[in-house]
């Protein structure tokens, strides 16, 4: 703590901050451009000038850049000083001499940091009479638009892209007046976090292309606090809706999870919500061969209820991409004995093992912010950038943090980025990765061990043994592996906070056990370490805590005709199980009820199809990979623009269906009812009630506004349908209102912030007004509640060591390779995502490719029990022999561990429909 004097007033601040950060944390406004809470200061823009005085008697002082000046005790500065003001005004003026007259046609307009700062400094007349320099733009892919004229050379983009995110294809070119920020030539920005440029860049140089395609100003969007459904990290997002469509997704600051950044899958993968082929009204047919007829709610529920009543036994199949509430309500409908999680048996076994390990390994699960504080990391069997991208970004920061440690030894403050970097050079915290193919974190890793799953597990066991000899040893390790195990163990032991990361990507419980053993070994050494286990889908963790039968069990029950009706919730069975198997099971079913927000192959077969809400139209709770229950809230009501649509949350449908089934009078149910019901039914999930405030939460007696107070077009957006405006829709489930009426300020601390705005702060930088200190936590507390607590005590090591991987002469072991773009069921239905995703392919080692006589790009037929696909080959030099890597997200029941036959398919291009595209979903 330090005391600083600003304009004659004394304040207590964090002495480790710079003055800019300290003042912003105090709520004082100083304009700035190049400083960013996550990237520190470089002093490039000169916008943050203030006058600093030596001591009380100094009345001259001098101008300093507040971002480059420590907030040391007894610092005296003046923000309001005339000369400082004039200086700042002139800085904006010269930043603007080349700025185009673009605001009306600029996607940044209305949430532009440059606009905000220009207004803040008071510059409003152009005096410069000479000509503006101009630049040509580049094509940067389907996600990001480029308009280089608008650049003010703050260097934030390259600092983020190259340093923070580790991208290599964006740079600063030219010198002096020529400076250009872009790629060496047109092309897709490769980095998986490129989307953050749209928020990092304080101007309209980098903007969201997917948003531009259906552009709406920030003030016109309707927001709600939401949770990204695209992977298990559970980043907080702020989706914006207009005219019944999600228009863009922006980061919603969470001090523990995502901080300032999202990955591109989360940011640009929302397009599936807007697909025109989504089911929007219930459809019914009594015979599978009939055409479905669209029905109204009551009729549909009536048919559904009587069909289910006629059934002998009803199976319910849930989904790890549906909320806890929806799964719970399904379980209530069919009974716990008849409930399947909709997850395949091996995956479910893995999930259960992960839950157990998280609770009994003796090490806590860190949050993402906490990950960045670990100083040695071992990743077993995960390509984090592909499977849990945002976590990968945090791991990268953890390795880079060594520079901070080194710098602080010299007394260099961590925010002094350039000095920290120059001093630290390539000295990073150790990161070890064991994964068959190259990963995005390799550049910051000490070493990546390209191993088959079993060998990864064996390496892990060996590391555990090297840390704690009490852990089971691995015999017959080759010397390389033994050496590797020793090195890794050494690094982990030396670290003050070692972190083990593993997960479900390779579908191997042995790998998980190995990770668990290392964690236990570390825990016995009383290390302040952590264990992080990556789950495949948004709510996999939650569903594992809830429990239920596997998908195979459900299909067997149906095939064996011990049940004749099935209710499937937000799950495309064809995506998770082989087509024949699903066909067989569904052929025996008398009544198939499917609730989904996408037109899936399963839904296409339904007798009763009910349109359920995606994350944008519904409320619910997810549990992320660290066991944090987080609530997502409905962004908009589809009925406002499309009164004919009948979309409801699955839990609401299931409640009504239950009433119809049991001939109970129809009654409504609210989110709070279901959440409480779910918490009571599952002791492990008791904490989810605390994840967010209930529907009667109010601030100053007000609901929270979903729309900014400048929201326009209220009396006209719907006037083409009917000129009389309907009453704004009411929301019984949440404390938010579907209008601009309600609280939207930053004065009262709150957890749930639909959108960040403060007077004078329209850009995402407004989040600084909601945090306790800039880059810290939300003043109302970071949202969410942790479930899955550690069980204290010592737990035994796992002992069942797998055999070393033996490559087989004519069969290959299948490894599913997580894919960020195109690798999950929902976001891969979004158009820009399909454009960005690389075609699915098969990865082989050089030797195997030679053996098969194929080379890069040639098609190979892959055959297993589940069927055949033909995919082009990708030859990876480091890839272990005997493994076949298949791009994730191709569906059809392809899974880790299959032994497949490979046949070169020559040049015949008779691929099965859809294979090789991002996702064959409507085949």
């Amino acid at each position, binding site marked *: 703590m330090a005391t600083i004097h600003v304009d004659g007033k004394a304040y207590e601040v964090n002495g480790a901050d710079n003055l800019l950060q300290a003042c912003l944390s105090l709520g004082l406004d100083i304009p700035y451009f190049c400083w960013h809470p996550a990237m520190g200061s470089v002093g490039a823009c000169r916008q943050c000038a203030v006058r600093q005085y030596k001591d009380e008697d100094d009345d001259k002082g001098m101008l300093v850049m507040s971002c480059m000046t420590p907030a040391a005790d007894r610092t005296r500065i003046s923000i309001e000083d005339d000369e400082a003001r004039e200086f700042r005004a002139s800085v904006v003026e010269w930043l603007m001499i080349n700025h185009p*007259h673009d605001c*009306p046609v600029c996607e940044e307009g209305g949430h532009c940091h440059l606009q905000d700062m220009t207004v803040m400094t008071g510059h409003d007349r152009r005096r410069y009479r000479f000509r503006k320099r*101009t630049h040509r733009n580049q094509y940067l892919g389907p996600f990001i638009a480029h*308009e280089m*004229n608008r650049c003010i050379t703050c260097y934030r983009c390259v600092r983020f892209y190259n340093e923070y995110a580790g991208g290599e294809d964006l740079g600063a070119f030219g010198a002096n007046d020529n400076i250009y920020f872009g790629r060496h030539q047109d092309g897709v920005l490769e980095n998986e976090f490129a989307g953050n440029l749209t928020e990092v860049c304080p101007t309209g140089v980098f903007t969201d292309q997917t948003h531009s395609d259906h552009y*709406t100003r920030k003030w*016109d969007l309707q927001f709600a606090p939401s949770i990204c459904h695209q992977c298990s990290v559970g980043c907080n997002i702020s989706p914006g809706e207009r005219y019944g469509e999600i228009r863009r997704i922006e980061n919603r600051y969470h001090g523990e999870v995502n901080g300032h950044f999202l990955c591109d899958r989360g940011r640009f993968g929302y397009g599936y919500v807007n697909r025109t082929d989504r089911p929007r009204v219930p459809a019914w047919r009594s015979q599978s061969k009939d055409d479905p007829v669209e029905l109204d709610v009551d009729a549909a529920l009536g048919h559904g209820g009587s069909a289910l009543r006629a059934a002998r036994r009803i199976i319910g199949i849930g989904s790890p991409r549906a909320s806890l509430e929806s799964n719970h309500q399904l379980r209530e409908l069919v009974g716990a004995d008849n409930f399947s999680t909709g997850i395949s048996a091996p995956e479910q076994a893995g999930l259960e093992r992960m839950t157990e390990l998280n609770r009994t390994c003796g090490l806590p699960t860190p949050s993402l912010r906490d990950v960045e504080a670990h100083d040695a990391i071992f990743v077993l069997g995960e390509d984090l950038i592909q499977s849990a991208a945002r976590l990968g970004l945090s791991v990268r920061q953890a390795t880079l943090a060594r520079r901070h440690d080194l710098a602080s030894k010299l007394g260099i403050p961590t925010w002094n980025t350039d000095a920290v970097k120059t001093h630290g050079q390539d000295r990073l915290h150790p990161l070890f990765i064991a994964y068959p193919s190259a990963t995005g974190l390799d550049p910051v890793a000490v070493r990546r061990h390209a191993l088959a799953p079993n060998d990864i597990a064996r390496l892990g066991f060996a590391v555990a043994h090297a840390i704690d000899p009490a852990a089971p040893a691995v015999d017959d390790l080759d010397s390389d592996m033994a050496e590797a195990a020793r090195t890794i163990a050494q690094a982990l032991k030396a670290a003050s906070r070692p972190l083990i990361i593993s997960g479900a990507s390779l579908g191997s419980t042995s790998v998980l056990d190995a990770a668990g053993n290392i964690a236990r070994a570390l825990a016995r050494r009383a290390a302040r370490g952590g264990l992080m286990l990556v789950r495949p889908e948004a709510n996999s963790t939650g569903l594992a805590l809830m429990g239920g039968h596997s998908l195979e069990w459900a299909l067997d029950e149906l095939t064996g005709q011990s049940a004749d009706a099935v209710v499937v919730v937000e799950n495309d069975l064809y995506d998770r199980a082989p087509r024949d198997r699903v066909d067989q099971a569904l052929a025996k079913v008398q009544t198939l009820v499917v609730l989904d927000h996408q037109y899936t192959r399963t839904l296409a077969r339904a007798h009763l199809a009910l349109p359920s809400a995606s994350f944008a139209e519904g409320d619910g709770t997810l549990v992320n990979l660290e066991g944090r229950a987080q609530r997502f809230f409905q962004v908009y009501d589809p009925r406002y623009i499309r009164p004919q649509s009948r979309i409801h949350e699955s839990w609401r449908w299931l409640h009504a269906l239950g009433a119809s089934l049991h001939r109970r009078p129809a009654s409504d149910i609210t989110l709070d009812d279901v959440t409480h019901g779910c918490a009571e039914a599952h002791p492990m999930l008791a904490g989810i009630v605390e994840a967010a405030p209930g529907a009667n939460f109010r601030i100053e007696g007000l609901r929270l506004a979903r729309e900014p107070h400048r929201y326009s077009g209220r*009396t*006209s957006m719907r006037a083409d349908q009917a000129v*009389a405006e309907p009453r704004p829709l009411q929301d019984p489930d949440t404390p938010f209102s579907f209008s601009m009426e309600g609280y939207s300020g930053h004065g009262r601390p709150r957890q749930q912030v639909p959108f960040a705005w403060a007077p004078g702060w329209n850009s995402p930088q407004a989040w600084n007004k909601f945090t306790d200190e800039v880059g810290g936590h939300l003043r109302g507390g970071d949202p969410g509640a942790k479930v899955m607590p550690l069980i204290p005590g010592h737990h035994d090591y796992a002992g069942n060591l797998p055999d070393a991987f033996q490559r087989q002469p004519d069969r290959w072991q299948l490894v599913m390779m997580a894919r960020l773009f195109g690798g999950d069921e929902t976001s891969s239905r979004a158009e820009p995502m399909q454009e960005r995703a690389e075609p699915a392919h098969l990865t082989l080692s050089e030797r195997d490719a030679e053996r098969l006589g194929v080379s890069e790009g040639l098609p190979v037929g892959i055959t297993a029990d589940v069927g055949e696909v033909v995919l082009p080959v990708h030859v990876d030099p480091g890839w272990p022999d005997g493994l076949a890597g298949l791009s994730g997200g191709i569906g059809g029941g392809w899974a880790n561990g299959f032994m497949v036959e490979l046949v070169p398919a020559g040049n015949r291009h008779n691929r099965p429909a859809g294979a090789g595209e991002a996702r064959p979903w409507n085949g």
Partner: protein
Amino acid sequence: MLKWLITGTWSQLRTMGLVFMHSFRKRETVNYPDEEVYLPPRYRGRIILTRDPDGEERCVACNLCAVACPVDCISLQKGEQEDGRWYPEFFRINFSRCIYCGMCEEACPTSAIQLTPDFEMSEYRRQELVYEKEDLLINGPGKDHDYHFYKVAGMAIGGKDKGRAQNEQEPKDVKTLLP
């Protein structure tokens, strides 16, 4: 007190006298619709969308009019032509809500939206007062004859490359080594 009473009474009587003298004044109102009304060109009536001097739609769908409108009766959606030009995919004004305050015209950075001296817009059905772009867009530049937004803005559109707007240099060649 007495003075107050007397001056007060006098003032009232004088007022009445003055008002009475209005019996001999010309009438300020006209017998509309028998007689036509003169409306000055800056009268704020029916709203139009204009075109730039080249005959292209002026509106760039920036949404500033919509946000300026105190009764929120404008809504529109941005679209983009092949050549990069922004335009409104739809543009709707609900005249049953409009108060003809002219804030939209004030806010418009392109002179696209203008109020005209026409107020004869009554309808028997309110729904008819919802005007779409076809009803609003005219074939001329309206009151502002010269302004051409894209000639000033830095964005490249068909027929106007980078560096061709007012006060612009040729685009920089980043690959040159010369200063």
